[in-house]
């Protein structure tokens, strides 16, 4: 096997007990809640949801512990791959697992009721969360975060300072989680608007925001992030070519992904509109029948 490829495959780093600890806690809570609800034959605990949630966990592990993380300081496109996994792959997978109610069920009943009180309609906590995670604010935070960390000064600092790098990953992940919470409409459905038009708008806005950044990175004739000019190059990939690949990743596959999400949401919107129309017609028919009989 090519030594470079071999080194790439084995350069995993698990020396992050803090991240492992947090992932273990949330994985355990989900599993316990899922098993409890499964025993009650609840429709919340389905196999697709379980697989989706743990696929999300696996994506985080891949992003933070695999060679992708090890090589991100040497290859720009690896760093982009890592960010895309944290912002666009892990969050929707996690939310599609509907984690909130399942993890709540893992908690003992008294504590679950206390936590539940935080989420009731009139609670201050809920009102704060609803405000901070509103759809368009979520998009603004997501986009601003994405563009801010691609500023050369911030970016170069993140490649050499582990603390700054951690902050970068946390902001990417949490902004992705808030955005995808709105898009997947997972529980708790604080933004319980079943109208998909708002979500379609967010996807379009996000598509352009990410695509423009990808185009800038791909088409730039100079290396934007000077860090990559100071590190040894792998497999003869120059720093500029590396940047082009990273830009293309943000432009093409990401763009295709957003288009697929757009089409999915559009089909759901059409279905929703048809169902509403059918319901209204039925109600009108019943009202007319009632008037005739009266």
């Amino acid at each position, binding site marked *: 096997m090519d*030594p*470079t490829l*071999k*080194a*790439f495959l*084995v*350069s995993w*780093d698990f*020396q*992050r*007990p*803090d991240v492992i*600890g*947090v992932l273990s806690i949330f994985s355990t809570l989900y599993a316990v809640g899922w098993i409890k609800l499964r025993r009650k034959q609840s429709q919340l605990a389905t196999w697709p949801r379980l697989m989706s949630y743990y696929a999300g966990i696996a994506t985080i592990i891949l992003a933070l512990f695999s060679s992708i993380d*090890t*090589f991100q*300081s*040497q290859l720009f496109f690896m760093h982009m791959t890592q960010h895309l996994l944290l912002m666009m792959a892990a969050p929707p997978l996690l939310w599609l697992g509907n984690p909130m109610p399942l993890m709540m069920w893992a908690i*003992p009943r*008294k*504590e679950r009721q*206390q*936590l539940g*009180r*935080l989420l009731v309609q009139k*609670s*201050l*906590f809920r009102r704060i969360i609803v405000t901070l995670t509103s759809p368009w604010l979520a998009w603004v935070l997501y986009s601003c975060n994405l563009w801010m960390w691609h500023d050369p000064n911030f970016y170069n600092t993140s*490649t*050499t*300072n*582990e*603390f700054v*790098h*951690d*902050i970068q990953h*946390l902001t990417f992940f949490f902004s992705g989680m808030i955005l995808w919470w709105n898009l997947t409409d997972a529980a708790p459905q604080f933004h319980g608007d079943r109208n998909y038009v708002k979500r379609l708008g967010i996807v379009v806005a996000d598509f352009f925001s990410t695509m423009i950044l990808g185009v800038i990175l791909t088409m730039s004739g100079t290396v934007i992030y000077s860090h990559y000019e*100071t*590190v*040894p*190059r*792998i*497999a*003869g990939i120059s720093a500029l070519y590396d940047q082009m690949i990273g830009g293309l990743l943000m432009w093409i596959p990401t763009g295709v992904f957003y288009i697929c999400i757009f089409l999915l949401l559009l089909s759901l919107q059409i279905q929703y509109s048809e169902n509403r129309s059918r319901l209204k017609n039925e109600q009108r028919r019943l009202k007319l029948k009632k008037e005739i009989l009266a």
Partner: protein
Amino acid sequence: MKSLVVGICCLVVGILLAVGPLESVNAHALGRQQLERVEAGPYRITAWTDPLEPDTGRQLHLTIAVEDNSGLVLNAKIEVEAVHRQSGKKLLSVASHEDAINKLYYEAKFEPKDVGDWDFTISVEKDGEVGEAGFALKVAKGGRNLPIGWIGAGIVGVLIVGLVIFNRLPTSKRK
């Protein structure tokens, strides 16, 4: 109200847990670049040191990359000598792929116990071809590095256990 206060405390401490530097753990980044593709015989050497501000209380990780005209050089014999300028004390370490997180690089570890200036010399040898490069590094006095992350985790754990116990106390005993 009590739940909200506890929830906020857990959130704050949880954030501390997430972002606090874990000094007690051996995880490290590449760190500060000391050499940038410096010519050393037939090779070019790049070196980084971590932590960014080395001190006598922490292990110093030296990550080394070696290139030649055909790319990265693997399985070379690399020795690193560190000499304390003020006392003349010497430390010697062999850099290897095994110790490095990135298996294309080499890593050497040091535990400099003396404050002041240290001169590092990296010697590379492979198939009879040798190269050498060096840099200087200032090591400060080690302070108390509080593992903020672990302290945060401990506080969160205590709060959660405390809440669970409190909930199970008979109502008369809670007052």
